[in-house]
């Protein structure tokens, strides 16, 4: 891979390997992505710091408001994605080994799955808990604080804290979203997406508390259901993506709405090689990087030499930094499940796979 000889000055980050290079397992990253990973790590640490301040501030003022409790739990849950990201990025730094022959990229998927289950469970709990509070007409008692000789309604502090907690995560979310797309990192993407939408729950909570101040006790429970529902929705959406990736679905774009264009690019590239008649690929998303099996049907009479297979493999790897773990498999006809495949045989069906 051409990027392999890229030199990178030694940075300050402690998780880098000895020569300051950041890598995704076997995949060495081009310089702009090295920089993106470092920025993502920095942003996730900043996120954790901002969240710690928000969680402490909300805990100080939350009192008996159900909406504040929901918002507080949401903020606590928001710690999981950045922590999952930071752990995963450390783990996948290790190159593939005999024990982990595919590398450690699945760490991202595991982190993603764990985070989404936590969101799903807590979201469901909050919706049910808040709904029960509404049905049984629990009136939230919100008293006062005594500060500097003044007695001030606690709800004002809640509203101020919730409004102050809005801008930080939204700004961080927008910054991380860009990096997530660049790095093809779904945990970072999910985290950024949640941060970016955080203002809605912050505002809903503030409105809920302000409504209680007007004597509309049920505003609190309704706001709490909104917050719970938004956590639940995040959980369902992330769980779907996490399962999609862990079950080796054909690689998709980071938004998850379409097949990744690099698959078609690689197939076109392989088919346009002079000794190849037809090519089709099986591509799965391992976290940041793809694992690709390129099935090729050689032209009749074309010699299958090691050189040809090797140079096809190398040129495929140069298409995209995400492509590094590639096997080129010569077959008499394309398996049914790969793009352009018509044969009734399956690629899993005991063929001899030849790694170039």
């Amino acid at each position, binding site marked *: 891979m051409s990027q392999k000889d890229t030199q990178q000055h030694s940075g300050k980050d402690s998780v880098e390997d000895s020569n300051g290079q950041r890598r995704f397992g076997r995949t060495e990253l081009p310089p702009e992505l090295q920089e993106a990973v470092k920025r993502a790590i920095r942003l996730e640490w900043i996120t954790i710091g901002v969240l710690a301040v928000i969680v402490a501030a909300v805990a100080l003022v939350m009192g008996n408001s159900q909406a504040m409790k929901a918002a507080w739990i949401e903020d606590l849950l928001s710690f999981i994605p950045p922590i999952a990201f930071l752990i995963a990025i450390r783990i996948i730094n290790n190159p593939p080994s005999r024990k982990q022959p595919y590398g450690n990229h699945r760490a991202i998927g595991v982190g993603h799955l764990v985070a989404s289950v936590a969101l799903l469970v807590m979201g469901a709990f909050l919706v049910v808990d808040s709904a029960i509070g509404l049905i049984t*007409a629990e009136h939230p008692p919100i008293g006062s604080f005594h500060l500097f000789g003044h*007695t001030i309604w606690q709800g004002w502090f809640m509203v101020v804290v919730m409004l102050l907690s809005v801008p930080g995560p939204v700004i961080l979310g927008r910054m991380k979203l860009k990096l997530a797309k660049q790095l093809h990192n779904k945990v970072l993407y999910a985290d950024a997406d949640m941060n970016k939408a955080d203002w809605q729950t912050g505002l809903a909570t503030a409105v809920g508390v302000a409504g209680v101040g007007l004597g509309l006790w049920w505003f609190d429970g*309704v706001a709490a259901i909104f917050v719970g529902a938004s956590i639940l929705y995040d959980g369902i959406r992330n769980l779907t993506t996490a399962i999609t990736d862990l079950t080796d679905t054909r690689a998709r774009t980071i938004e998850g709405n379409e097949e990744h264009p690099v698959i078609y690019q690689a197939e076109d590239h392989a088919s346009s090689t002079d000794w190849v008649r037809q090519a089709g690929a099986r591509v799965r998303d391992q976290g940041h990087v793809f694992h690709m099996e390129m099935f090729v049907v050689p032209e009749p009479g074309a010699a299958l030499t090691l050189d040809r297979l090797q140079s096809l493999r190398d040129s495929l790897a140069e298409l995209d930094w995400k492509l590094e773990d590639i096997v080129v498999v010569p077959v008499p006809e394309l398996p049914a499940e790969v793009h352009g495949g018509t044969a009734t045989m399956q690629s899993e069906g005991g063929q001899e796979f030849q790694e170039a």
Partner: protein
Amino acid sequence: MGVPRCRPSAPAAPAPPARRRAALPAAGLALTAALALTGCTSSGYPADPEGTFDKASGGTLEVGVVHHPPYVDASGAEPSGSEVELVEGFARQIDAEIEWTVSGEEAVMTALQKGDLDLVAGGFTSQSPWSTHGAMTRHYAETTGPDGKPVKLVMAVPLGENQMLTELERYLDVAHQGAQP
């Protein structure tokens, strides 16, 4: 107080939980609009959903007490004790007549939960398990409990009657300033 009150005691039409992110901004707007449109002119902010404070001001303050000297001594014809004096001071401030109910903890707390009482006193502490039945005030003083550990003295008002809660806390802050931790 001749101020008209509104008491929305039941959710007229609680909006269904948002199923999608996109529904949230709209819902937020709806909530804000509901806030703006509520022509609710309660006498204060925070307001009481059941108007406890408004009804007591210039009227009758229904107080439940539990015999618990030296805070409440209910052995005489009229209750006396430090908390009784505090409650009397609060009633004077809001121009209310007190109607005392003397009974056991469970009886007064159940009456408070039902809305039959406006205030309960009786040497309750912030550790009281009765917080399911009433809203405990911020503690107004600290003392030593039966086990020798410090306890924080509180009173109770109906759950969610936040004007009542805040006004009582405001009074206790001033009346018991010396005892503030």
